[in-house]
C-alpha cells in the first residue's frame, strides 16, 4: 500500500498540515473570545474590541481557506491514487491465467476493483488525515488545558484511558464483520453478473422467480451482516460520545468549585470549557474514523489477495528468442514430450504421458469424446495453461522459455466459443497483428467466408461485440476464425472452429482452410468426420492419453473405439441398436 501512496506522500503531508493548521485556527478562535470577554468586555476597553474581533475574523477566514486547500488536494491526490491502483490491479488481472479466472467469481474481482478501492481511497483522503489531526488536536488541547489549570487539565487528559479501551474493543469486534460484508457484497455482485449474462437461460426456463428468490436471500444475508455492523457501531459510538460529555460535567462542577475558592478566574473557566468543548467532535468522529479505517484495512486485504497472486503463467526472466533451427524465423516444429496436466487442487490427471510430434506445416487433429482433454491439450501451446508434467516445444524451445507476446504472435488460436470485443470488425480481426494490411484482412475474411462483414451498416468499421451489433453464432465464429488465420501464423490452434456453421458454409471454409493449413503447423480439435479431412494425421485421445496416431482412414480401419467416436457414416441416419449398446458400455 505504501508503494502506491508514495507518489502522493507530498500532497498527503500538505493535507495533514492544512488539517492541523485549520484545527489550530479553530482552537485559537475561543482563545480570542476569552481575551475579549476577559479583556475589553470586562474592563470596558472599547478600543481593544475591534482589533481582537478583526483577529477572530482573520482566523475564521484562514480556517476556511485551509479547509478549502485540504479538500482540493484530497480530490487530486487520493483519486489519483485510487486510479493508479485500479490500473495496476486491472493489468494484474489480465496477466493471471484462465485457471485463476475460472476459480474466481467475476463479481468478487469487480468489487475489489470498485468498492474496495473506494473504501481505501476514502480512508486515505479523510480517515487517515483526521486520525492524525484529531490525535494532535487532542494533545494540543490537553496541553493548553493543563496550562490554564493543571488539575482540571489532567482530569480531561485522563478521559483518554476509557477511550483507548473502547477503541481496542471496537477494533476487535468490527474487523471480522467488515470483511464479511465485503465478501458477501462480492458474492452478490457475482449473482448479478451471472443473472445478467445468463438471462437467456433464465428466460428460456421462465425461472425469474427462482433466481430473484436466490438473489433476495443473498441480499437479505448482506442486510443481516450490515445490521450487525450497525449494532457494533451504535454501541461503540454512543458510549464513546458519553466520555467527553461526562468529562465536561465533571469539569463544570470542579471548575465552578475552583472559581468559588478563587483558584481560577471566571474567564479562565469559560475559556477552559470552550476549549474542552472542542474535544467533543474529535472524540465523536473517532467512531466514524475507526470504522472507515477498519473497512479500508479489510478492503486493502482483499485487493492484495489478488495483487499478491503471482501469475502462474508469465514470461521467463530471461526469455529465449523463438527462432527456427537455423536461427531465422520459427518453422513450427511442435513437440509434446511426456506431457501431463491436472487441474490445480485436483488429485487426478486430465492428461498424462502425451508424446506427439508435428512436422512444420503438418496438421494434427485431436479426436476424443467430450471431456477427454482435447481442448486442454490444445491450450498448452499458446500457454493458456501450462503442462504440469513434461514439456511442449516449438522448434526445440520449451514454450515456457519464450516471452509470452513472442509465443502468442507465433501461435494463433480460435476458440470454440468465439469471443468478439467491443470494437470494429477490423480491430477484432487484426487483434494482435496491428501491422496487418487491408489486403491481409480481406484475405482472412475471404478465407473464413466472412465477407458478410462488408454488408454491415458501416462495413468493417461497424462496432461488434457486447457494446456493438449482435451477430449470429455462425457469424461470430467466422470472424474469430478470420482473426486466427490473419497473417498466416506459423502455428495455429483451432478448437472445433466450425461447429456453428451450416453445412454449405462449412464446406467452403474447409476448402479455404485446407490451403492455409498446407503451410501452417496446426492442432485442430474436431468432433466431425468432415473436419477431420483437414488433418494430415489424427491423434486419438482416450482416458487422458494418446491411444493411437495415424491417418483418419487407418484409424477407422484399425481402432474400434475411434470408429465409434467418429461415427460410421453408414449408421448415422438410423443408429443400430447394437452400436448404441457399445457406446453405452
Amino acid at each position, binding site marked *: 500500500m505504501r508503494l502506491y501512496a508514495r507518489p502522493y506522500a507530498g500532497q498527503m503531508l500538505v493535507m495533514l498540515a492544512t488539517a492541523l493548521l485549520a484545527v489550530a485556527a479553530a482552537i485559537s478562535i475561543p482563545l480570542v473570545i476569552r481575551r475579549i470577554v476577559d479583556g475589553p468586555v470586562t474592563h470596558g476597553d472599547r478600543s481593544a474590541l475591534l482589533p481582537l474581533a478583526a483577529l477572530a475574523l482573520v482566523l475564521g477566514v484562514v480556517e476556511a481557506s485551509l479547509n478549502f486547500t485540504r479538500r482540493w488536494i484530497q480530490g487530486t491526490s487520493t483519486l489519483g491514487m485510487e486510479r493508479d491502483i485500479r490500473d495496476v490491479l486491472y493489468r494484474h488481472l489480465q496477466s493471471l491465467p484462465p485457471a485463476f479466472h475460472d476459480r474466481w467469481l467475476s463479481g468478487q474481482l469487480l468489487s475489489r476493483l470498485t468498492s474496495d478501492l473506494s473504501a481505501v481511497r476514502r480512508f486515505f483522503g479523510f480517515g487517515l488525515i483526521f486520525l492524525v489531526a484529531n490525535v494532535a488536536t487532542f494533545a494540543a488541547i490537553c496541553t493548553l488545558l493543563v496550562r490554564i489549570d493543571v488539575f482540571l487539565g489532567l482530569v480531561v487528559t485522563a478521559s483518554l484511558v476509557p477511550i483507548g479501551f473502547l477503541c481496542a474493543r471496537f477494533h476487535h469486534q468490527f474487523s471480522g464483520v467488515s470483511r464479511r460484508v465485503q465478501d458477501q457484497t462480492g458474492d452478490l455482485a457475482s449473482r448479478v453478473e451471472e443473472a445478467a449474462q445468463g438471462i437467456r437461460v433464465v428466460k428460456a426456463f421462465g425461472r425469474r422467480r427462482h433466481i430473484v428468490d436466490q438473489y433476495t436471500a443473498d441480499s437479505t444475508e448482506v442486510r443481516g451482516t450490515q445490521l450487525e455492523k450497525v449494532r457494533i457501531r451504535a454501541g461503540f459510538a454512543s458510549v464513546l460520545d458519553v466520555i467527553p460529555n461526562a468529562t465536561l460535567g465533571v469539569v463544570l462542577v470542579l471548575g465552578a468549585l475552583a472559581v468559588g475558592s478563587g483558584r481560577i478566574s471566571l474567564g479562565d473557566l469559560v475559556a477552559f470549557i470552550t476549549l474542552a468543548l472542542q474535544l467533543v467532535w474529535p472524540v465523536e468522529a473517532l467512531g466514524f474514523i475507526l470504522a472507515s479505517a477498519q473497512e479500508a484495512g479489510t478492503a486493502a486485504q482483499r485487493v492484495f489477495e489478488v495483487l499478491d497472486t503471482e501469475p502462474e503463467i508469465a514470461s521467463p526472466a530471461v526469455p529465449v528468442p523463438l527462432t527456427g533451427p537455423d536461427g531465422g524465423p520459427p518453422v513450427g516444429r511442435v513437440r509434446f514430450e511426456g506431457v501431463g496436466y491436472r487441474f490445480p487442487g485436483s488429485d487426478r490427471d486430465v492428461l498424462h504421458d502425451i508424446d506427439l510430434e508435428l512436422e512444420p506445416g503438418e496438421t494434427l487433429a485431436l479426436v476424443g469424446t467430450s471431456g477427454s482433454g482435447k481442448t486442454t491439450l490444445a491450450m498448452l501451446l499458446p500457454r493458456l495453461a501450462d503442462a504440469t508434467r513434461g514439456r511442449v516445444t516449438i522448434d526445440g524451445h520449451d514454450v515456457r522459455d519464450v516471452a509470452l507476446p513472442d509465443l502468442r504472435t507465433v501461435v494463433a488460436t480460435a476458440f470454440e466459443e468465439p469471443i468478439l470485443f467491443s470494437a470494429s470488425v477490423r480491430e477484432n480481426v487484426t487483434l494482435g497483428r496491428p501491422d496487418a494490411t487491408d489486403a491481409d484482412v480481406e484475405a482472412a475474411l475471404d478465407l473464413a467466408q466472412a465477407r458478410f462483414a462488408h454488408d454491415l451498416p458501416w462495413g468493417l468499421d461497424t462496432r461488434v461485440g457486447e*457494446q456493438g451489433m449482435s451477430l449470429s453464432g455462425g457469424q461470430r465464429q467466422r470472424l474469430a476464425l478470420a482473426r486466427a488465420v490473419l497473417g498466416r501464423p506459423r502455428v495455429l490452434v483451432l478448437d472445433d472452429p466450425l461447429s456453428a456453421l451450416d453445412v*454449405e458454409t462449412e464446406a467452403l471454409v474447409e476448402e479455404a482452410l485446407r490451403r492455409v493449413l498446407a503451410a501452417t503447423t496446426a492442432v485442430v480439435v474436431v468432433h466431425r468426420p468432415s473436419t477431420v479431412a483437414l488433418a494430415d494425421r489424427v491423434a486419438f485421445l482416450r482416458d487422458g492419453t494418446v491411444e493411437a496416431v495415424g491417418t483418419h482412414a487407418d484409424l477407422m480401419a484399425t481402432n474400434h473405439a475411434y470408429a465409434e467416436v467418429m461415427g460410421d457414416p453408414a449408421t448415422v441416419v438410423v443408429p443400430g441398436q447394437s452400436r448404441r449398446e457399445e457406446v453405452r458400455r
Partner: protein
Amino acid sequence: MSAPTKAPSGADWRGVAAEHTENVSSTVAGLLRGRSRRLLGSLLAPHRRTLWVVLGLVVVQNLASLAGPYLIGAGIDRGIPPLLRGEGGGTLAVVGVAFAVATGLQVLTQRTFMLLTGRIGQDVVLDLRTRVFEHFQRLSMAFHEDYTSGRVISRQTSDVDAISEFLDGGVDAVVRALLSIVGIGVTMLLLDVPLAIVGLASFVPLFALTLWFRRESATAYRTTREAVAMVIVQIVETLTGIRAVQAFRREPRNEEIFAALNERYRAASQKSFSLMAVYGPGMKLISNVTIALILFYGGTRVLDGELGVGVLTAFLLYLRRFFDPLQDLAQFFNALQSATAALEKLSGVLEEAPSVPDAERPRALPAPRGAVRFDAVSFGYKEKVVLPGLDLHVPAGQTVALVGATGAGKTTIARLLGRFYDPVEGRVLLDGVDLREVEEHDLHRAVVTVTQESFLFSGSVADNIAFGRPGASRGDIEEAARRIGAHEFIAALPEGYDTDVRKRGGRLSAGQRQLVSFARAFLADPAVLVLDEATSSLDIPHERLVQSALRTILADRTALIIAHRLSTVEIADRVLVLSDGRVVEDGPPHELAAGTGPYARLHHAWRQSLHRTGAA
C-alpha cells in the same frame, strides 16, 4: 453529447434514454429529479412510522444536548455567585446532576437512533436491490442486447453502493443537524433578539451557495455515474473474454482503453470533489465571519450594558453549535446529490417497460398439449425485416425441423415461440392461446428452449440440472442425466453431481456443458421443446445418444429443431426449408430428400461431407 433536437418532453427522456447525456436542460433535469425523488419516496414509504419514532428520538436527543451549554451558563451565572458568597453549592450540585441526566439520555437516544436509521437504510437498500434485480430480469432480450451486461452490473453494484453510502452516513446527520439548527435558532432568539437576527441573516448567503452547489453537482455526479459504468463495462468484458485477450495479446490495447476510462472516471470524481471543496469551506467561511461579527456586536452591547457577559458567552457557545451541523448538512447534501444521480439511473431502469410485457389478465394453461400456430406473424430487428408474414401450424406432438441458410429466420421463429420477442404483427398461439396472454411461468413450463450457448451458473452440476425444475429430487436429476447420456461423465467427475462447475461451467468442456443443458431441459419436461443448435458441440457418440433419447422424449411432445447437422433433422416428422423468412419447402424429411428441391440438395451435400473423409 449532442443536444436534443426537439424540445424535451417527458417521453424523450423516459427510461434509460438520458443515460448518455451529461448536460441536460433544466426541464429534463427537473423531470429526472422528480422521478428519482418519487422512487426514494416509495422506498421510504413502508418506514413512515419508524421515521416518526426516529424524529421523536432526535427531538429528545437534541433537547438533551442543548441542555449542555444552557446548564453550563446556568452553572456560571447562578451556581457560582452563591458559592462565592459562601451560600453553599446546592444550586451547583443540582446543575451537575441535571447535566449527568441529560448526557445519559443523549447516549440512550443516540444508540436507538443509530440502530433504527441503520435498519431503515438497510431495508431500503434491500428493497431497491430486489426491485431493480427483478426488473432487469423482467426486461426483454431486446433491451438486454442493447444495454449490455456490464451496464446491468454497474447499475446494480456501483449505483446501489452510492445510495447505500448515502443512507449509511447521511440520514443520521441531517435530521439531527436540521433539528439542532432549528432548536438552537429558537434558543438564540430567546436569549437575545438583535444578536439572533445577525446570526440568522447568514442564511441568505448560505442558501445562495447551496443553490449553486446543487446545480453544479447534479451534472458532475451524473457524469461520474456514467464514467464508472463504462469502467465496469470494460472490466466485465475483459474478465469474460480473458482467454481471447491473452491468446491475441490484447492486454496492451485493453490497458490503453482501461486507463482512458479510469482517468475519465477520476476526472469526473475530481470535479465533484472540487465542487465540494468550495461548498463545505464556503459554508465555514460564512459561519466564521458571522461569529466574528457577533463577537464585535455582542461585545459592544455588553459594554453598553445592554447584555450580560453570561448571555454573550452562552450565545457564542450556541452559535458554534448552530454552525457546526452545517458541515454535516453539506456532507449530507453532497451524498444526496450523488445518490440522486444514482437514483436517476435506477429509476430510469425501473421505468423501462418490458417490450415483452407480462399478461394483464393471464389465461391459465393447466395442461398444455403443445399445438403451435403462427398466425400471419411478421417480425424484424430494427429496420431489417426477418419474417414478412409467417403462417405455420404445428399440431401437438409433431417434431418440426427448420432448415435454411444463415439469416433465413430460423432462430427468429424459435425466439418468437419462446417469447424472447413478440411479433410486430400477427400472433403466436399455443393451444389456441396467444402467448401474450399466458403468464411467463406457465409459458415456460410449457415451452423450453435449449440454445447453442449452454450457459451454466456457478454451483454444482446437480444445481445446474435442477434449474430445469427447482426442487427436483436427486433421483430425478440423475434420471434426466442418464436419459441423454450425461450420467457417465458426471459420475466420473471428482465429486460426481456435487462437483462445482466453476464460473460459467469453466470446469467442463463445451460438449459437457451442452449435455448438462440438455439434461436441464429434459428435467423441465415441457410440452414444447425448442432446440436451437443444441447439439453443435457434441461428439458423435453423444450426439447419437441424445438423438436416440430425443426419439422417445419427443414422441409425445411438440418440438422445433434447428440444426446444421442433418443427422438431427432426420428424426423430425416434418422439415421446413426457410428462405428469407418464408417457407419454401414443407414435408417429411425422407420425402423431401428423395425429391429435387432445396432440401434434397442440402441433404446430398451433407451426405457428401460425411463420405468425404471416409474415403480420404
